[in-house]
């Protein structure tokens, strides 16, 4: 689950260099940006569209980055705003009966697949109900297994705030789960 952040040297090279260096920076960050778009956006958000928009914004505004070390939190901020816009658009679809969401595929047979999908749907539902700030720390710390300091650097907030948000988010997540889908309790 955990993916290391790309080397800041790539950012330094892109700030100084040309298109090839910029492409290398995009290539290095794209898997992370795509994963954030997928996980923070949820099933209603077009993760590919959001990731594409995020890297285009990064390319357009890279000259505002003053030091390579600040790129991760700066880029996370862009990704967060892009996803917020996509979530807003996706929200409209919630009102539409018949609109589909992505389906997980585990490759373990239809019965197992349906069961996994029910759990995943319930997890998405609970995540979707959390405030964005809590959703972010849960994804970074629990799903991507990043340290508190790493999450604090990405979010641009103090370590203590990450810890308190994580505690609150975990509490809210646990509290919401039984109501989210009783079937999950059976499955787990």
């Amino acid at each position, binding site marked *: *689950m955990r993916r290391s952040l790309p080397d800041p040297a790539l950012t330094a090279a*892109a*700030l100084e260099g040309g*298109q090839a260096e*910029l*492409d290398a920076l*995009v290539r290095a960050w*794209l*898997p992370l940006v*795509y994963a954030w778009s*997928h*996980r923070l956006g949820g099933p209603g958000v*077009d*993760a*590919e569209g959001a*990731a*594409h928009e995020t*890297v*285009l914004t990064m*390319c*357009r*505004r*890279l*000259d505002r980055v003053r030091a390579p070390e600040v790129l991760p939190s700066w880029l996370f901020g862009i990704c967060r*705003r892009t996803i*917020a*816009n996509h979530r*807003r658009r996706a*929200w*409209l*679809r919630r*009102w*539409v*009966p*018949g*609109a*589909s*969401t992505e389906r*997980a*595929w585990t490759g373990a047979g239809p019965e197992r697949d349906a069961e*996994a999908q029910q*759990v*995943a749907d319930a*997890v*998405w539902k609970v995540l979707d109900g959390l*405030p*964005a*700030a809590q*959703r972010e720390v*849960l*994804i970074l710390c*629990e*799903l991507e*297994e990043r340290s508190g300091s790493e999450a604090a650097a990405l979010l641009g907030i103090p370590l203590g705030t990450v810890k308190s948000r994580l505690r609150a988010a*975990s509490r809210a*997540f*646990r509290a919401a*789960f039984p109501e989210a889908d009783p079937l*999950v309790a059976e499955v*787990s």
Partner: protein
Amino acid sequence: MDVRELLQRLPEPDPAGVDRVWARYRSGRRPAPRVPLWAPVIAIAAAAAALLVVNARTEPSRSLALGPGADAEGQLAWSQQVHLTLDGRGTATGTGHDLRIDWESGTIGVEVVPHSGTEVSVVTEEGTVHVVGTVFEVERDALGVTTRVSRGKVEVACRDGWSGALTPGERHTCTPLRPAGLLGRADALADSGAPSGEVLDALDRGLAQVEPGAPVGGELLARRIRVRAEAGDAEGALADADRYLAEGHGSRRLEVLATAGRVALGQGGCGAALRWLEPLRREGTPEDRVILASCLVERDPAAAAALATAALADDDGAMDAGWRAWARDLTGGAP
């Protein structure tokens, strides 16, 4: 099962997705803007010029434009007692011991040597920050004007009614006053995931002040429709949609109709939604027309099929696979 285990039940992102985004990026990339090689030279020259001006002039009062391309940017030693860190735009006026900064946008850091008898005020439309010997930062953005104190004490007087003293570690945001500023605050709060109550507060305050018929009133209403609907207040959202149309705002008419149509559909079904959806028959997006077709399919299958067929024909890729499949179902096999 703990939180981490449950989260790990989420499907992993499709590994091929990264390659598809990469391909889109490669096919449509634009050259990134670069900092021109001469920019640092200009910046250094501007800072040096500003310092020279500060040191050389003997008049009791002087004025400097602050910000990119202005008299001073980055760091500025206004006097031996006052040092400024600039990441935004404004104007500094005064003497070495009495400085007024009219701050327009961005962040300004101010360091004043304590007990030097130097007075500094940072003035914005939303409020005034007044200090005598301290270190603090003022940021003016869409949320308002936020003052953070690192050392010493500052007096803040907001025009929204709040006033008080801030000590190290404390911060306060003076909120915007005008409807357009409150609209920006509402958007910034929504983007940051703030509770809907806070967003609605900014929108309500903006709407309470807006002149009848002003375009910003329509924008505020359009936002409130969305926020109310997201907060589950369908009746409030639909009342706002009625008000939006009654006041004759036009720029977001289609968006308002589409949102109200979906809200009404969720609340009262097709019977309640049709009055919002019907006007979208010609002007709406393909998705709007698919929804309308779904509401017409029982009483007028031929019209529903025609609408769905037209929606599929007009789709420029905005509809995802689920929507297209739904539209195809509604065509009833029509070509």
